[in-house]
C-alpha cells in the first residue's frame, strides 16, 4: 500500500508539472512573451552584445553543429585546465593538488557531455573553484546543449522550405535554417535552468543540504573509541551544484557517495524533490514538443511511451528487491516487510530511504541520463541491477537526458514510422515530413553508435590486462560491472555499478572516449536530420496517413524500442545479470 502511494504521489506530481513547465519552455523557444522577460530580457541582450551575437541570424544545421561542437570542446579544455591548475588557484581551502591527466580528461569529457561519470571522489579531489567553475557551469551548459539540439530538431520538423528562391540569406544559399545555437543555449540557461535551480537549491538548503565556502569541519564523535575521537566532515558549496545536477540530468555528486550522502540528500522530502527534478524537464519537454509541432497529442504520445516502459521496468526492479535475497535468508536475516522493517534486499541501501525510494531513484536516474544515486546499484539483486543497466542500454530515451532523451526517442520514432509507414503502403512520413534514405541513414547512426560503443568497449576491457585488473569480483557479476560501466558512459548516463576500480588510466581514457563519441556522434546526425527535414515540403494529412498519436502507434514504438534493445543486449545480459539470477535462484 505504502509502495503504491509513494509511486502514485511521485508520478502524479510529475505529470501535474509537465504541462505548465512544458508550455513555458515552448514560449521560451518560440520567443514569446514570458513573465521573466522584464528581469532577464536585459541580461540576455547584454550577453549577446557582449559576445557580438546577432540573435536574429539563422544557422544551417552544419553551422549549428559546428557552433555546438566548438563550444563543447572549449568546455572540455576549460574543465581539464581547471583540474590541472587547481593547486595554484583560489577557493581551495583543503589545498587539494592537481588532478592526474587521465582522470582530468575523463572528468572534463564527462561533465561537458552531460554524462557526469565520476572516477574521482569529489570531496577528496576537487577544490571549491573546480566544483563551481568547472562542474557546475558544465552542468548548466551541457544540459542546455542537449535542449538546443532538440529544439533545432523540432524546428526542422515544423518549418517548411523557403517558398521563394529569391528570399534568402546569402550565407545559407536558400536553405532553411534550424535556429541559432547561441540563442538556444543562452535562453535555455537563462530562462529555464537558472530559475528552476535557484528555487530547488533554496528548497534543498531548507532541508539541510550544505552550502558554504568554509573548510572541512572536524567534529568529535558521539561515541568515541580509542584512536577515533574526531572525524573530518567534508562541506562546501553543495546545494547550488546539486540542484542543477538533478535538473539537468547531469548526476555528478558534490560528494563521492552522491545523493546517499546526508549533506547532499538529508531528508525524505529532499529525496522526493531530487527524484522529481530528475524527470521534470525531460517530461515537460515532451509537452513542449507537442506544443511546438502544433499538436500536443504528439507530445503526450511520446511521454506515454516513456512512462509505460519506465513503470513496467520499475515494477520488475521493485519486485526483485522487495522479494529479498535467498542467500540472506540462509544467514537467518529477516527480509519480511513490516511496519518497522522495509524487508527485501536492503544491502547497499540507505535505511532512511528504504526499498521503494531507492529502487525508484535507481530506475529514474538510469531512465533519464542522470546517473546520480542514493543507493549502491552493485548491491541490487541481479534483476534489480539489470533494470537500470538495460534502461541505459535502450539508448537513454526513456525520458533520457534533457533534450537528448527526446531527440534519441525521435530517432526511434523515425525508424518506427518508416517500418509502419511501409506496412500501410505509403512512403513513410512523420508529422507531414517524408522519411527517406537520408533520414534513415542518420537515424540508424543514432541507434547504432551507442550499441557499438557499449559492446565494443566492454569487449576491449575484457580482452586487455588493464581492463581485467581492476574487476574486483571476477565472475558473472564482474562482467556486469564492466558492462554497466560502458553502458553508462556509452549512453551518457554517468551512474556507476561500482565494484570496478575505474579511476585507472585504462578506464579513464576508454570511458572518456566512449562518452565523447556517444554524445557528439549522436547530436550531429540528429542535427543533420533537422536540416534535411527543414527543407522538405509538408504533406497534408489524409485518411491514408498513419496517425502517430494513437494507442496503436504508442504500442508499436514501445515494441520497436524493446525489440531493438533486447536484440542488441540480450546475449550480453545473459552472461551477466541473467545467469547470475539463475545461479542464485537456480
Amino acid at each position, binding site marked *: 500500500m505504502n509502495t503504491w502511494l509513494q509511486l502514485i504521489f511521485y508520478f502524479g506530481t510529475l505529470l501535474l508539472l509537465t504541462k505548465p513547465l512544458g508550455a513555458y519552455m515552448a514560449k521560451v523557444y518560440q520567443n514569446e512573451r514570458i513573465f521573466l522577460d522584464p528581469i532577464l530580457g536585459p541580461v540576455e541582450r547584454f550577453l549577446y552584445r557582449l559576445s557580438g551575437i546577432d540573435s536574429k541570424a539563422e544557422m544551417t544545421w552544419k553551422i549549428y553543429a559546428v557552433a555546438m561542437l566548438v563550444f563543447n570542446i572549449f568546455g572540455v579544455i576549460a574543465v581539464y585546465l581547471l583540474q590541472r591548475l587547481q593547486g595554484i588557484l583560489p577557493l581551495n581551502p583543503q589545498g587539494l593538488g592537481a588532478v592526474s591527466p587521465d582522470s582530468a580528461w575523463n572528468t572534463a569529457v564527462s561533465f561537458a557531455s552531460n554524462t557526469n561519470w565520476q572516477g574521482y571522489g569529489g570531496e577528496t579531489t576537487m577544490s571549491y573553484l573546480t566544483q563551481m567553475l568547472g562542474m557546475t557551469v558544465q552542468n548548466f551548459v551541457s544540459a542546455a546543449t542537449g535542449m538546443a539540439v532538440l529544439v533545432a530538431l523540432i524546428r526542422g520538423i515544423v518549418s517548411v522550405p523557403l517558398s521563394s528562391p529569391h528570399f534568402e540569406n546569402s550565407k545559407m544559399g536558400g536553405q532553411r535554417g534550424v535556429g541559432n545555437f547561441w540563442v538556444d543555449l543562452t535562453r535555455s540557461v537563462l530562462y529555464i535552468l537558472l530559475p528552476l535551480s535557484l528555487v530547488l537549491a533554496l528548497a534543498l538548503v531548507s532541508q539541510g543540504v550544505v552550502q558554504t565556502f568554509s573548510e572541512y569541519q572536524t567534529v568529535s564523535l558521539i561515541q568515541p573509541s580509542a584512536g577515533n575521537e574526531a572525524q573530518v566532515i567534508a562541506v562546501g558549496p553543495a546545494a547550488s551544484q546539486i540542484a542543477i545536477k538533478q535538473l539537468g540530468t547531469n548526476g555528478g555528486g558534490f560528494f563521492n557517495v552522491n545523493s546517499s550522502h546526508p549533506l547532499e540528500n538529508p531528508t525524505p522530502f529532499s529525496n522526493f524533490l531530487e527524484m522529481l527534478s530528475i524527470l521534470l524537464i525531460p517530461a515537460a519537454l515532451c509537452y513542449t514538443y507537442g506544443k511546438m509541432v502544433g499538436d500536443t497529442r504528439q507530445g503526450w504520445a511520446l511521454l506515454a511511451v516513456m512512462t509505460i516502459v519506465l513503470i513496467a521496468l520499475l515494477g520488475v526492479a521493485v519486485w526483485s528487491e522487495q522479494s529479498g535475497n535467498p542467500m540472506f535468508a540462509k544467514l537467518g536475516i529477516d527480509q519480511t516487510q513490516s511496519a518497522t522493517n522495509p524487508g527485501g534486499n536492503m544491502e547497499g541501501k540507505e535505511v532512511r530511504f528504504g526499498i521503494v525510494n531507492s529502487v525508484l531513484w535507481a530506475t529514474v536516474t538510469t531512465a533519464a541520463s542522470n546517473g546520480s544515486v542514493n543507493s549502491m546499484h552493485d548491491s541490487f539483486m541481479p534483476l534489480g541491477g539489470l533494470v537500470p543497466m538495460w534502461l541505459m542500454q535502450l539508448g537513454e530515451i526513456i525520458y533520457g537526458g534533457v533534450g537528448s532523451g527526446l531527440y534519441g526517442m525521435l530517432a526511434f520514432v523515425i*525508424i518506427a514510422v*518508416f*517500418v*509502419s*509507414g*511501409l*506496412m*500501410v*503502403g*505509403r*512512403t513513410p512520413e512523420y508529422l507531414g515530413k517524408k*522519411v*527517406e*534514405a537520408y*533520414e*534513415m*541513414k542518420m537515424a*540508424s*547512426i543514432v*541507434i*547504432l553508435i551507442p*550499441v*557499438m560503443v557499449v*559492446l*565494443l568497449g*566492454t*569487449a576491449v576491457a*575484457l580482452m586487455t590486462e588493464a581492463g*581485467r585488473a581492476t574487476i574486483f569480483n*571476477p*565472475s*558473472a557479476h564482474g*562482467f556486469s560491472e564492466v558492462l554497466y560501466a560502458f553502458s553508462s558512459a556509452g549512453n551518457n548516463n554517468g551512474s556507476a555499478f561500482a565494484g570496478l576500480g575505474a579511476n585507472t588510466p585504462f578506464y579513464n581514457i576508454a570511458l572518456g572516449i566512449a562518452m565523447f563519441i556517444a554524445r557528439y556522434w549522436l547530436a550531429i546526425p540528429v542535427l543533420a536530420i533537422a536540416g534535411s527535414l527543414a527543407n522538405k*515540403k*509538408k*504533406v*497534408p494529412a*489524409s*485518411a*491514408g*496517413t*498513419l*496517425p502517430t498519436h*494513437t494507442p*496503436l*502507434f504508442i504500442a508499436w514504438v514501445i*515494441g520497436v524500442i524493446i*525489440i531493438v534493445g*533486447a*536484440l*542488441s543486449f*540480450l*546475449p*550480453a545480459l*545473459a*552472461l551477466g545479470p*541473467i*545467469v547470475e539470477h*539463475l545461479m542464485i535462484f*537456480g
Partner: protein
Amino acid sequence: MTTKNKTQARREMYQRAVLESFIKLNPRWMVRNPVMFVVEVGSVLTTLLWIQSLIGQGEAPVGFIGAIALWLWFTVLFANFSEAVAEGRGKAQAESLRKARQDTPAKKVGKLKVESLQVEGANVEHEIVSSTTLRKGDLYLVVAGDILPADGEIVVGIASVDESAVTGESAPVVREAGGDRSAVTGGTRLLSDWLIIRVSADPGQGFLDRMISMVEGAKRQKTPNEIALNILLAGFTIIFLVVCATLLPYSIYSVDASGSGTPITITVLIALLVCLIPTTIGGLLSAIGIAGMDRMIQRNVIAMSGRAVEAAGDVDVLLLDKTGTITLGNRQAVEFIPVNGSNTNELAEAAQLASLADETPEGRSIVVLAKEKFGLRGHTVDGMHFIPFTAQTRMSGVDFNGTQIRKGAPDTMIGLIQSNGNGVASNLKPTVDSIARAGGTPLVVTRDNKALGVIHLKDIVKGGMKERFAQLRKMGIKTVMITGDNPLTAAAIAAEAGVDDFLAQATPEAKLKLIREYQTGGRLVAMTGDGTNDAPALAQADVAVAMNTGTQPAREAANMVDLDSNPTKLIEIVEIGKQLLMTRGALTTFSLANDVSKYFAIIPAAFASTYPQLNALNIMRLATPESAIMSAVIFNALIIIALIPLALRGVPYRAVGAAQLLRDNLLIYGLGGLLVPFIGIKVIDMLLVALHLV
C-alpha cells in the same frame, strides 16, 4: 497453351531459376545486397572451418560444422532463387516480345514534304533497308502484311494494325495520321491499307526495347524506399555483427571467470549472426521489387521505372477524365420534353425520324428510346432526304413530304427558329436550362423551323464508380474529375459519380496548373492521358499513365503505359504500388520479430558448457545444443522459401484507413513473426531428433 505445355514451361522456368541461383553466388553480384553478402561470407568461413575439421583440427564435430555450412549455403541459394523466380516470370514475357523485335526489312522513304507524300501514297518511291539502320526522323512505308520496323508517328494514311505482339489483344486497332491515335509501335503488324510513318526512336530505344528491359529487370534500379530500407537493414546487420563479434571475448572471459566450459565456437557465432541479421527480408527484397513490376505487367501496364510503381502507392490525388473513366464514353437520350403545346408522342416521332441516319451513339440512343418508350419503329420512307451534321450548319435532320425536321444544340436551333421569323416558345429556354443544370445535354428538335421540344441526353456514370471513389476516400486519396463540360454540367455529374472535386472547361493549361497547385501543397498526383495536349500535364504528374492508343508524345511524357488503354486502371495501379511497400514493411517486421525466438534457441545452447543454468532460457525444450542451433539455422533458411509466394504475390491490400491496416499487419506479421518461429524451430528440432540426425 495446353495445361501440359504450361506445366512444362513452368518446370523449365524453375530449372533455369535453380541454375541462376548458383550463378548469382558471384560475390560481385552478391555485394549489392549487404545482408545476403554477409551470409555468403559466413558460408565461406564455415566451409573453411569444415575443411579444417576434416583435416583433424576442428573446433567442433565435423558433421555439425558441415551441416551448418550446408544450410548457410542453402540460405544464400534460397534468396538467389527467389530473385531468379521473380525475374523468370518477366523473362518469359521478354522472350516473346523479343521475337517481335527481330530485324525486319524496312521500306525507307526519302524526306519529302507531307503534301507530296499524301499525293503519292503507297506508290511512293522507297528503298529496302534493315530496320536497324532506321534513325529518328526517318520516314518509312508499310503496307498490309508488313511488320512495322520501328516506333513512329503516322504521317499519312489510315490502317488497321494487329498489336497483339505488344498488348496480347488480338482484335485489330485503327491507327491514322493526326489526332490521338497516330502512334505505332515497332514489332506490330499492319493488317490492311498502308501507312507512311516517321521514326520516333533510334534502334534499341524503342518502346518494345524499353519494355523488354523493364520486364527482364536487367536495368532495374533500386527505388527510393528500397534504398532507405536497405540502409535500415544494413544498420541492423552492423548491430548484429558487433553483437556476435563481441560475444567471443565475453565468452572467453566467462569461461575464465567461471572456470568451466569452452568458449563459443566460430561456427556457432556465424550461425547466430546469420539467424539474427534480417535475412528473410534481405533475401526477398529484390524479388518483391521485381514482382511488383511484374504485377503491373500482368495487368498490361508497363511501368518505365520502378520508382513510378512505388510512387503510385503514395498518390494522394487522382485526376480522372470524365469521359470513358467516370462515364460511359457516350451520352444517351433519357427523356423527351415537349414545348410549345406539342405532345410527347409527336416529339418522339420527330426525334426518331431526325436520328434515323445518325450513326453516332447519341443518335442511336434517341431511336432506341423512342422505340422503347413509345413503341415507335423507326422506318425509312421513300423520298426521305437526310441532312447530315456538318460543322457549318451544326445540326442534322431529315426532309420528307415537304416537312423539315432538325435537331441540334439549343443556341443553333434558336438561331434557326428566329432567322425564319418564328417566335421562340416561352417554355423552351427554361426546359433547356433545367436539363443543363442537371448535368445533361439538351438537344432541341424543330419541325418546319418551330420548336417541338427538347431531347435530354445524359452522361451515364459507370456502374460501381461511386463505391470505388468511396474506397479511394477511405484510402486517403482524393478524386478529381476533369471535363471539358461547363461547370454546371460538371458539378451535376461530379455529384452523381461521387468524386471529391472537379475541373470544368478543362484546358491543357488548366490541368497543368491544377497539378502544380496540388504538388506545391505537398501532394502526389496521378493522371491518365492520351492526347498530345495531355503531354505537359503527364510530364508534370508524379504518376502518369498514357493509353497505348494515345499519341507518341503522350506515351513519352508518361511514366507508365496502359496496353489495354483502360483509364479506370489507375486505381489498380495505386493498389499495386501500395502492395509493394506493404510487402516490404510486413516482411521487415516479420524478419526482426523472428529474432527473439532464435535467441531463446541459440543463447542457452552456445553457453551450455560455461553456464548450464542458462538452459532455463531454453523454453522450447530443444533436445541438444547442436539440435537447437541447427534448428534455428534451418528454420531461418526455410522461411525464405516459404515466403517466396507471398513476396511474389504481395501482401493483400484492402481499402481501409491507415490505422486499421497497421493494426492488422502488425497482428499478422509482427505477432505472427514473434510466434511462428517458436513453433517452427521446435518442429524442426523434433524432426532432427526423430531422424537421428543429431
